[in-house]
């Protein structure tokens, strides 16, 4: 463990190297030296990660590369064995999902976690309903009108089109449901939004809607992390691609001067077989950055 416990030598992932995307100052979210083992399996090895406000980062990698483990470490589902998390430059401790939520980090999982039987407004405000005060403490009915007003405002902001926000979400398409799940995070004042395979189950038109919405999130100044298997989607919407392989961060690309083939080879390790022999994340990063 000792060889992974120390943070990466800084400089390999210097923000300045990324060009002119909105990467001045502190990242909205920064992780350093994250390691996590499940029994004998080392799921993450000394991984650094950072995402800036107003930026979309694609987190890619093959199955078992550690993408989910990293996301779970950020969202508080799993606690990493070592490493540090900084939110807005401040050191943060995330040991449970509520910690992440309180820090403004929201995760949209693939299953979306919507109640099909409830309407759009009810889903958007689930667990944090707005209430009137009819009689203090005793009678505090739901403030449906204000919730509906705010719901339509946030859906307008994301440019989500829905026949009526009073229909049960069971009646909506996959893309619309994805949009509702994302709108939910906006209503919680998220600063960092993690999207797990947002386009996996969607058709062509719905995928475009969702990608459009991701751009809108970026434009409104949020830090967005997209986990995806679909490189076409990744290239269409992200600013930077971070590649994980076998629990290590092996490469970082700026999409503007990268080809999908380069990313694929980083994911599979095809051209960089020697990286693995060195058994250290720093070397891998360095060589990949040079290749760029």
């Amino acid at each position, binding site marked *: 463990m000792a060889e992974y416990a120390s943070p990466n030598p800084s400089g390999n992932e210097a923000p300045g190297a990324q060009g002119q995307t909105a990467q001045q100052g502190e990242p909205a979210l920064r992780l350093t030296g994250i390691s996590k083992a499940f029994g004998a399996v080392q799921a993450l090895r000394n991984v650094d990660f950072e995402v800036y406000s107003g930026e979309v980062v694609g987190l890619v990698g093959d199955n078992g590369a550690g993408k989910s483990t990293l996301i779970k470490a950020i969202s508080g589902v799993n606690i990493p064995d070592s490493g540090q998390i900084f939110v807005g430059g401040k050191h943060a401790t995330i040991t449970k*999902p*509520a910690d992440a*939520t309180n820090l403004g980090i929201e995760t949209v999982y693939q*299953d*979306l*976690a*919507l*109640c*099909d*039987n*409830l309407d759009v407004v*009810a889903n958007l405000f*689930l*667990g*944090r*309903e707005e*209430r009137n005060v009819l009689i203090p403490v005793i009678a*505090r*009915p*739901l403030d449906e*009108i*204000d919730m*509906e*007003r705010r719901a*339509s405002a946030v859906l*307008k902001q994301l*440019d989500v*089109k829905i026949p*009526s926000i009073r229909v049960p979400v*069971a*009646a909506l*398409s*996959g893309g619309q449901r994805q949009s509702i799940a994302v709108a939910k995070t906006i209503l919680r004042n998220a600063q960092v939004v993690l999207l797990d395979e947002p386009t996996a189950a969607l058709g062509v038109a719905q995928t*475009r809607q969702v*990608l*459009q919405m991701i*751009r809108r999130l970026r434009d409104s100044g949020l830090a967005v992390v997209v986990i995806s298997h679909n490189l076409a989607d990744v290239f*269409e*919407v992200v600013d930077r691609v971070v590649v994980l392989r076998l629990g290590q961060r092996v490469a970082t690309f700026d999409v*503007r001067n990268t080809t999908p083939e380069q990313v694929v080879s980083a994911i599979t390790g095809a051209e960089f077989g020697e990286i693995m022999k060195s058994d250290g994340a720093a070397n891998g990063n360095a060589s990949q950055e040079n290749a760029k």
Partner: protein
Amino acid sequence: MTSQSSTESAPVAPTPAAAPPGPFEVLRKRLFQGDLGQLPVVLTLILIAIFFEITSKGIFFAPQNLSNLILQIATIGFLGLAAVLVLLIAEIDLSLAAVASLCGAVLVVLSATKGASPAVAIISAIVVGAVVGLVNGFFIAVLRVPSFIVTLAALIGYTGVLIHLLPNASIRLIDPFLSGIAANYLTFPWDVLLPVPLIALYVLMQLWTRIRRQRAGLSQAPLWEVGARAGAVVVVSVLALIVFESYRGIPFSTLILVTALLVFWLIMRFTAFGRHVYAVGGNAEAARRAGIGVVGIRVAVFTLASTLAAVGGVLAASRAISASAQINPTLLLDAIAAAVIGGVSLFGGRGSVWAVVLGSLIIGSLENGLDLLNQGTDVKLMVEGVVLLIAVTVDAITRRRNATGLR
């Protein structure tokens, strides 16, 4: 970036506010889609009533019989309401009838043999119900034992307790107040005056909501729809009043049931708790991730259900003027059937408190009509079994169609 900018400028014009559909258009659309709401249930009720009116040679619609029918369904109504709550979180409670009988027995034993005052007897019976529900809820929600088994065990166990409490099979209820709950009526003019302020309040609430929505710049339900809804409430109230007034008035037990229905309608429809109950029934994992205390909601629902069953048991004991060690064999079935017939889904999260009214009217009419035709328990059980099966089948088919058709 160039390919991006072309997609970014894709036209996303706001949908123009289409002209709201008129009443006939909505009706036609719903008929076409097979989304008829409660209409088939209402038609079934009318058919059943006409059938028994003819076969009983005019006794069914006699004022005294109708009033009797309403009295009969007070207990079914309370247990049905309990069943609705439990079904909404996609669980089941098989112990409702046993709990009702047990609490009825507690009431009668305390009043008749221990000499407790009516208030003490009633409160004790209801507290026993609440504790029973709390215990059920603990095993189901905290220990995650399937509700089917927990409440089956409760059903068997409390049947034993009931027999233990009433070694002589039954005890008569002597207290005049307690036996008067079911036997007394709210008479003219109070029974006519009572609904007036309530209906006025309802209409005012609707109008106030319209004004507030208008101020907030939100879409409005068409005026005819609001009018139709208010009109339906008035028509149903007037019809019910005519029935009650043609005999003696509104039975007290009916008044208690309607009050409970109103209170639970308000809770389920307008409070965060009610919203969370529906959420737990719709997707418990989503509810948990949204920060809802799913365990607490489940415990609360089972506690409320058993408490309502206890009230039903008190009304049953008052009506029978006794407590019996024999649990009514059809009561549990009646309660669950009333909920499901009224449109509450066995799969959780779908249905309204008002389902109980239609459901228990259908169940009550069947029992009452078969009694009028001098049919025994054998026929009643067979008919009710078939009716419950039909209702559950319709629920399962509707669910499947919604799951596949709507996406």
